[in-house]
């Protein structure tokens, strides 16, 4: 498994909002290239578009301190990238290559765990990362370490029993845990109205006795500030936080899903609030030069081109190794 993904030399100087823009753009470019590869038949199995989720995954990911731990899901690509998971390792995983994060064992964006980067890989049973993230938080608390844990879940995931068990237990323990709900209006084809009878998931925080907050999930700076504050609260003994980030899943659940069940009007409404576009607009209005953003765009293109080329050229896993690693030797 390869080492950390360092920022290219030319971008190491990127700070603050330009750095934020770089990660947003890298995530968007990765996603667009991935989607077109799958449409061209160059993919293996399924994959999951990230479109519309970049502000949450990047904003929350950037808010983490180096020693914090995160348990992301399948629409949190930006978070994996920000934590230092190299794009070629992720493309390698998407293509089932030996160089992928899981060496061809777990599928597409699943199971992208790497403890050296402080990332816990998830399983398809949505909700099951929640108690694992809580356990990591409890470990930090037990050893009196000032570290916090971040995890994500979708609106559909909030209907599971393990969601309830985890939030209640996190509150009882006062655990340093931050849960970001990516409320993207649909769980596969099921709209929010068939998932819950409340308009805000965050309103449930009160019922657990924890801090709850609603944030604009399409505004990367808002997400960053809210997650950073929540993580600081967690590290300083203030207990867990439930953050609901409102957004929209702009494409289907997975690549094979045309999402015909989503109205064109709803998509159009959210398209006006595209997280990349609103952030770029704000940067330009604040005096950032367009050519600086385009330079970052080109850098992202080059990085993703190189990652795809490396992943496509990488070897497939050796079937003779298939039974290895079930157990720690």
């Amino acid at each position: 498994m390869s080492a950390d993904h360092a920022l290219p030399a030319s971008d190491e100087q990127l700070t603050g909002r330009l750095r934020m823009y770089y990660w947003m753009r890298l995530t968007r470019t990765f996603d667009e290239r991935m989607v077109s590869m799958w449409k061209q038949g160059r993919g293996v199995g399924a994959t999951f578009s990230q479109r519309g989720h970049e502000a949450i995954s990047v904003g929350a990911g950037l808010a983490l301190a180096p020693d914090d731990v995160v348990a992301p899901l399948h629409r949190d690509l930006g978070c994996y990238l920000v934590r230092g998971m190299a794009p070629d390792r992720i493309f390698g995983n998407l293509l089932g290559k030996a160089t992928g994060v899981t060496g061809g064992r777990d599928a597409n964006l699943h199971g992208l765990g790497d403890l050296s980067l402080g990332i816990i890989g998830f399983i398809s049973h949505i909700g099951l990362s929640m108690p694992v993230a809580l356990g990591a938080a409890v470990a930090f608390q037990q050893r009196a370490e000032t570290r916090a844990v971040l995890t994500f879940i979708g609106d559909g995931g909030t209907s599971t029993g393990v969601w309830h068990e985890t939030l209640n237990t996190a509150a009882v323990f006062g655990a340093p845990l931050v849960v970001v709900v990516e409320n993207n209006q649909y769980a596969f084809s099921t709209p929010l109205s068939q998932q819950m009878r409340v308009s805000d998931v965050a309103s449930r925080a009160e019922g657990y006795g924890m801090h709850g907050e609603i944030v604009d999930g399409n505004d990367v700076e808002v997400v960053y500030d809210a997650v950073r504050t929540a993580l600081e609260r967690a590290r300083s003994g203030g207990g867990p936080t439930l953050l609901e980030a409102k957004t929209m899943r702009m494409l289907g659940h997975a690549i094979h899903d045309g999402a015909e069940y989503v109205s064109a009007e709803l998509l159009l409404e959210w398209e006006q609030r595209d997280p990349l576009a609103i952030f770029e607009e704000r940067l330009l209005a604040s005096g950032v030069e367009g050519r600086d953003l385009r330079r970052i765009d080109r850098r992202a293109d080059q990085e993703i081109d190189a990652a795809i080329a490396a992943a496509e050229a990488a070897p497939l896993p050796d079937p003779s190794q298939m039974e290895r690693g079930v157990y720690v030797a």
Partner: protein
Amino acid sequence: MTTNADSRLAPSGPETIHRDLTYLEAIQEALRVEMRRDPSVCVLGEDVGGTFGGAFKVTDGLAAEFGDARVRNTPLCELAYVGMATGMALMGLRPVVEVQFADFITSAFDSIVQFAATTHYRWGGPVPWVIRAPSDGGISSGPFHSQNPEAWFVHTPGLKVVAPSNPADAKGLLIASIRDPNPVIYFEAKPLYRSLRGEVPSGEHVVPIGRASIARSGSDVSIVAYGAQVREALGAADRLAHEGIHAEVLDLRTLKPLDWEAILASVHRTSRVLIVHSANRLAGVGAELAAEIAELAFEALDAPPVRLGAPDTPTPFSPPLEEAFRPDADKIVAAVRDLVRY
């Protein structure tokens, strides 16, 4: 014949003192020894902490010695607290989880089978936890406080499964399970908790995972058992000896990985094998044993491998029903007589 006749076991050190402990006291001693040795070892579960010390009092006194953080009471949430143990283990702790009754382990099934068991294979995350599951019946506990669900976990890649039959192994296998870098499910036979006493070495007594033990030597038939059924098998073997039938009792001790070397060696010695477990016979651990023995030792056998287990029925509550349901020494004696006559 004595327990621990297995010559592959490391001898105890010269300073080792053997004391008589109950099965329950031996489990408790293992927890205390490991918690004193290693600050990363901790205990969690429902009612395990404080001054209460667990539904069966296995963790009694641990909170007083090690504090509430290392002996952690959880809310009623099997799925969450097993998931928590996975997260704690990934961060370098060695949690020992008590599910109050093995029956309730199903409420944690996803956290065990889907998450913890697959993690190392998928992305290399080590999950060194132990789940202690008080199992088995015979004490009128009804359908939901008597179960033996070990076969589900033996069927799951990535888990190890142990089931000690006596106090010395209860201690030694728990210490081995805590030190193992993989998720281990430790089935403790609650009918033995206070009813079985035996010599237990003091200190860091380790019984390696994956090693069966010959609980009694014999030449006519092998009785392969584990957990509470080893005591029944030993009782049956005593009675059979009076009839001139010399039964060997092989105590599996570990159900995953199985000690095929010891199992096949015993079958080769006796040419007849009876497999006994408290769990349902259908698709139980005995089914795998019988199939593998038939495949690998067919020519050594003078009779088909025979299995004795519970019927395909939930565990009934009322004493005559449960007695009819559960294998015991009487049923083992009858099955061996048939097997020897084959």
